[in-house]
């Protein structure tokens, strides 16, 4: 409870600020607040630039931000345990998805409705759709969702060896074989994080292209993953890449955070990454030109469409938080014009954050990459129910497949089982 003096000071501060610049946001009104908000997120979801903005936010509002960064392979279990036991942090990070925010996060119960926040109307409609339930917005996008998971490659190495951008799986294998002959490990893969190698499965869009109704059939439980020709091909080719040594020897213990350094070293030629790797490699090695990184779509299943996904890491305010107002101020600060510009400028992979007031920073190389693949197909993460919540389990299955503990067919059967378990637990009528 505020005393009279504090109330007076607060009112005075509000009046002064209200009378000053119109752009000054309301969070500056309470510069003397003694509140610490906790924000739990997976590794790589909170960039250094965000923490720097967090410090400025604290300077301006007095609200401290305690970032709790959890290793990505452990994050989902920890988050769900905290949500399910009612002991979550003030802010939590989670993947957006029209399906999983309802079935997994139960945002209607666990998160605060942010629809009336000033910044909410600036969120791009496609990104907002993946964060909304019944027209109410529950989350705030963190990352650039225009970026796709594509194969980022060292253009200089390709030029030196006379390699062309592959257009199908066979030509991709040719490229990898030539790289191996030159003593360069073709692809940097990092299974230990638990999630990155699953990004290769975004090429499941090949199944959607073969049958546009397939995602709907999966959602209605009228089709299964098991037995799908394109998906079997996708997992078989991935396993083949491991067996042929395209991922090198250390792919099981490599870490995602080390990818820019690995590419900068020249030891590896390619990595599945989103657009902006060039800036990150350049940060590791200033002699490495940003535009020396080019991109092409993963050629699994001979697919040449762009795998688009408007889902991505997002911030949610926990409904049980004692600091909801302070958390809202943090979100407002992060969505301001200045913060979005700062994030775009300082985070290499952020070229176009999903806000109408965010600047665009596509380089010619990246723009040329997007232009090269005019056909866009939504990935399973966005189009198939109970797929995103099973992401880490699928990752465990895939690593078992890499280690010869499971076959591609068994992985697909297990995905069906994982989805059925969640559907049954959710009393989904399509599964009953």
């Amino acid at each position, binding site marked *: 409870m505020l005393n009279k003096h504090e109330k007076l000071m607060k009112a005075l501060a509000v009046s002064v600020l209200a009378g000053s610049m119109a752009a000054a946001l309301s969070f500056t009104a309470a510069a003397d607040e003694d509140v610490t908000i906790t924000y739990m997120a997976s590794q790589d979801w909170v960039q250094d630039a965000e923490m720097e903005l967090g410090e400025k936010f604290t300077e301006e509002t007095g609200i401290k931000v305690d970032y709790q960064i959890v290793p990505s392979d452990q994050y989902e*279990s920890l988050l769900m345990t905290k949500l399910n036991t009612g002991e979550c942090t003030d802010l939590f990070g989670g993947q957006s998805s029209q399906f999983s925010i309802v*079935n997994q996060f139960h945002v209607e119960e666990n998160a605060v409705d942010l629809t009336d926040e000033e910044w909410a109307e600036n969120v791009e409609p496609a990104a907002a759709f993946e964060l909304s339930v019944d027209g109410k917005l529950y989350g705030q996008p963190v990352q650039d969702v225009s970026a796709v998971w594509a194969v980022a490659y060292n253009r200089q190495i390709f030029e030196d060896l006379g390699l062309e951008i592959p257009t199908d799986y066979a030509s991709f294998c040719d490229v990898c074989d030539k790289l191996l002959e030159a003593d360069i490990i073709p692809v940097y893969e990092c*299974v230990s994080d638990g999630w990155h190698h699953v990004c290769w499965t975004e090429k499941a869009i090949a199944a959607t292209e073969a049958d546009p109704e397939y995602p709907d059939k999966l959602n209605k439980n009228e089709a299964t993953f098991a037995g799908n020709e394109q998906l079997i091909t996708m997992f078989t080719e991935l396993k083949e890449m491991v067996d042929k040594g395209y991922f090198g020897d250390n792919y099981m213990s490599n870490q995602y955070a080390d990818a820019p350094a690995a590419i900068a070293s020249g030891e590896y030629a390619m990595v599945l990454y989103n657009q902006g790797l060039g800036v990150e490699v350049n940060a590791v090695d200033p002699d490495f030109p940003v535009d020396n990184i080019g991109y092409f779509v993963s050629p699994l299943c001979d697919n040449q469409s762009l795998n688009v996904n408007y889902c991505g890491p997002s911030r949610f305010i926990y409904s049980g938080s004692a600091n909801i107002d302070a958390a809202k101020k943090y979100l407002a600060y992060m969505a301001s014009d200045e913060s979005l510009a700062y994030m775009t400028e300082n985070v290499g992979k952020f070229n176009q954050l999903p806000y109408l007031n965010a600047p665009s920073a596509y380089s010619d190389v990246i723009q040329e990459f997007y232009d090269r693949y005019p056909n866009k197909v939504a990935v399973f993460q966005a189009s198939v129910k109970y797929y995103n919540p099973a992401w880490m389990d699928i990752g465990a299955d895939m*690593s078992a497949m890499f280690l010869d*503990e499971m076959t591609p067919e068994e992985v697909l059967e297990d995905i069906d089982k994982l989805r059925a378990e*969640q559907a049954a*637990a*959710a*009393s989904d009528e399509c599964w009953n």
Partner: protein
Amino acid sequence: MNKNKIYPWYFMAGALVLYFVLFFLPGLIGVGYSFTNWSAYSTELRFVGLDNFRTVFSADENYTKIISNTLVFTFVTTIIKNALGLLLAILLTKSVRFLNLHRGIVFMPSVLSTLIIGMLFKSILDAKSGLLNTFLRSCGLGFLAQKWLVSTEFAFGSVMAVDIWRGVGYIMTIMIAGILSISTDYYEAAEIDGAGSFARFRYITFPLILPTLATTTVLNIIYGLKVFDMVYALTNGGPGKATTEVLYTAVFKKFGTGQYAVGTALSSVMFLIMLFVGYFMIRLMTRNEVIE
């Protein structure tokens, strides 16, 4: 125990009520939930009989492997920690220079946070740039360098080895207390009779330290069955599907994915195993007690 000195039963009523409400009742409710479809996905609660236990013991699932991993972990770490602990205790009860320093060094890992140890060893055991493999390669022993934490052959052994390294100092300390409580008269008499070092260990130290050994065994078994943080920090149950998964990491994951009922069923199985093991442990520890 003298029956005339038995206190009235109501002296323990307070403790009993607290134990019942805070420990027994939640445990009982947990077992009850394992017969339902309790989950985070639905507010409806339905009795499903033994369905969750069928899932736990189903051949299609990994739970039997998880249970067997837990038992193997418990068995192996208990034996090795006891053996190494006893060996170190014998060495460090001799006249050795800087005795307390040696004891302190061996004991130190026990007081470090398990999660920090896990993270340190994750780095030390890294296949490419970890300290261990780098050292082996620099000594010309590169052929011994392995993928310690990310291969199905070595991951479980590596996790157990790190846990033994962490826990052996604690066991050693208890053993040292046990050895120091043995009267030196026995050893002097044995020496006069011409007994060598091994004979003194075989006929004096070992029999008299058995009660201490029983205590450390119980501590190790309880710890082993409940192990969580070491596995969580080092491998999180991987690589692959369940190479190093143990019961508590599996229960944690089930709760994490909102499948509470299967999680409680797994916990109930764990409870039965601990009840079974505990019964024999208590018998072992009390078999030499004399009731007057």
